[in-house]
């Protein structure tokens, strides 16, 4: 975080000079000299969601896996149970397909967005 001192003397909280900290920021075909904050620098590039990659929408524990790799399944059939916040969430097939790989096992504690099952 940048703290600017008055009278044009520019220092960060850690005492480093920020004169060389200005970067180009493009906005409507114009480049502005400015600083970029952490939130802007750390923003994640957007990616379209692949329906064939089934990810956990909430962090939790895998308490049951119903299927095995290579199994041919219909849309809506249960794949596994992800327990989170004391609720057992049944994760189902989003479309008809074959289970290509299962990336979690019973008992695994997973973070949000973790890849659970890949289908084809």
């Amino acid at each position: 975080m940048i703290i600017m001192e008055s009278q044009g003397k520019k220092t960060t909280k850690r005492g480093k000079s920020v004169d060389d900290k200005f970067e180009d920021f493009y906005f409507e075909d114009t480049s502005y000299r400015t600083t970029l904050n952490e939130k802007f620098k750390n923003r994640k590039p957007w990616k379209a969601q692949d329906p064939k990659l089934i990810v956990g929408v909430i962090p939790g524990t895998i308490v049951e896996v119903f299927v095995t790799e290579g199994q041919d399944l219909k849309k809506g059939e249960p794949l596994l149970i992800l327990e989170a916040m004391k609720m057992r969430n049944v994760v189902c097939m989003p479309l008809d397909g074959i289970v290509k790989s299962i990336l979690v096992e019973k008992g695994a504690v997973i973070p949000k967005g973790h890849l659970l099952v890949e289908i084809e």
Partner: protein
Amino acid sequence: MAANKKVLEFKQRREKVLQGGGEKAIQKQVAMGKMTARERVLAIVDEDSFNEYDLFVEHDARDFDMDKKTLHGDGVIIGTGTVNGRPICIFAQDFTVAGGSLGSAHARKITKIMDHSLKMRMPLIGINDSGGARIQEGVNSLAGYGEIFFRNTLASGVIPQISVILGPCAGGAVYSPALTDFVFVVDQISKMFITGPEVIKTVLGEEISMEDLGGARVHCETTGNAHFFANSEFECFDQIKKLLYFLPWSNTEKSSKLNIVQPKTSFDITEIVPEDARQPYDVRDVVRAIVDDSDFFEVQELWAQNMVIGFGKLAGETVGFVCNQPIVLAGVLDVDSSDKSARFIRFCDSFNIPIITLVDLPGYLPGVDQEHAGVIRHGAKLLYAYSEATVPKVTVILRKAYGGGYIAMNSRHLRADFVFAWPSAEIAVMGPEGAANIIFKREIASAEDPEATRLKMVDEYKEKFANPYVAASKGFIDSVIEPEETRKVIQHAIEVSSRKEISMPRKKHGIPPF
């Protein structure tokens, strides 16, 4: 003599209660680097001004052997005193007594002093240092929190409410500070969260330290929940006193008028802003060149730094500043900066503080993350807050005022009372480069030398539109002023609008895009 005996007994009783949780607990508190609740109160109020109430209040819980436990003052100190010579109400949770936990007697003490502050129209300062609900009291403690939240809401916009987080403040307890106007935190001491690291770990498997989850820095830089960051409790208390010096005591009063002090000559307003609209500068220096004694008190200095908000005195009276900050993200509007400034505008409007807006921005920040975070809804808060505000509203356009950003930053169209522009102002639908590329797209593409044509078109556009005169010709800007006139012109504008009266349509309340 009998009377003396009674006085003596009273003194002994009082002495005992004043010990709080006792020597051992106090040593623990000190070992954590914290002051005791009473030390804190006495450090905030003026010397010899504190009057304590409900010293002898005791809980009446009976379950879990609680009937055998005496908790001095039930873990909270309440009272009245003065700050800068003016009366305030204050409560301080005492962590040395049962971890400052909140039971029904504890909550009743807090709500008593809250009722006083609302009834008698004086600011409320609440010091939070508590382990949370007193589990042994069950639903009684939940009821206590609810009563506090209700009063925070009732008092909102009537008296200034200040929360000071000097220890843990977890679970439901966080919502009282969240409902108040200003939250003060101290590095390494303040901890605020809904669910702590242990619960997060067991339920979700995520590991995080208390400091990283809800420490002072996180709430000042990332969440925006806190407004003032201090390195020590004493620094924090100085910040509180400084803030109170700018505030009126209630929504029916004005802030106290002080002697006029000219800005320091070291802030030369003609030197701060570069002519080239693409070059940065610190807008706070412009504010310092305008306010009395160059004393600008910034609010939420570390969060959403692309917008600067804060208080200053102008001709002895408090004004609120809302400014784009070109030194961070070129001063764009985004989700956080809209949130930050909208809330500040509503505070100023509630407490009769005129709003001065300094404009220099290229527009709203583009990006999927912004759109998906709801920049439409959040950005609308800023429009709402400005449109709704009936205090004197003065705008000065320093350089760029493009597109939606021009409208949002207290334009004439949202009922600014006075809009001024420097000769360097550019009021346009977008920057010259972007505009020329769109308007003259065909000419540029079909030209023999597209780049030369493009530059020519950009120049042409700049010449015609990148100035304050088009907007001035339509009366959207009242005057074009020289930078060195800024303070004088704003001061005059605020003086002439001091009896401003606006009647709004009758309604119960509006529905801002929360």
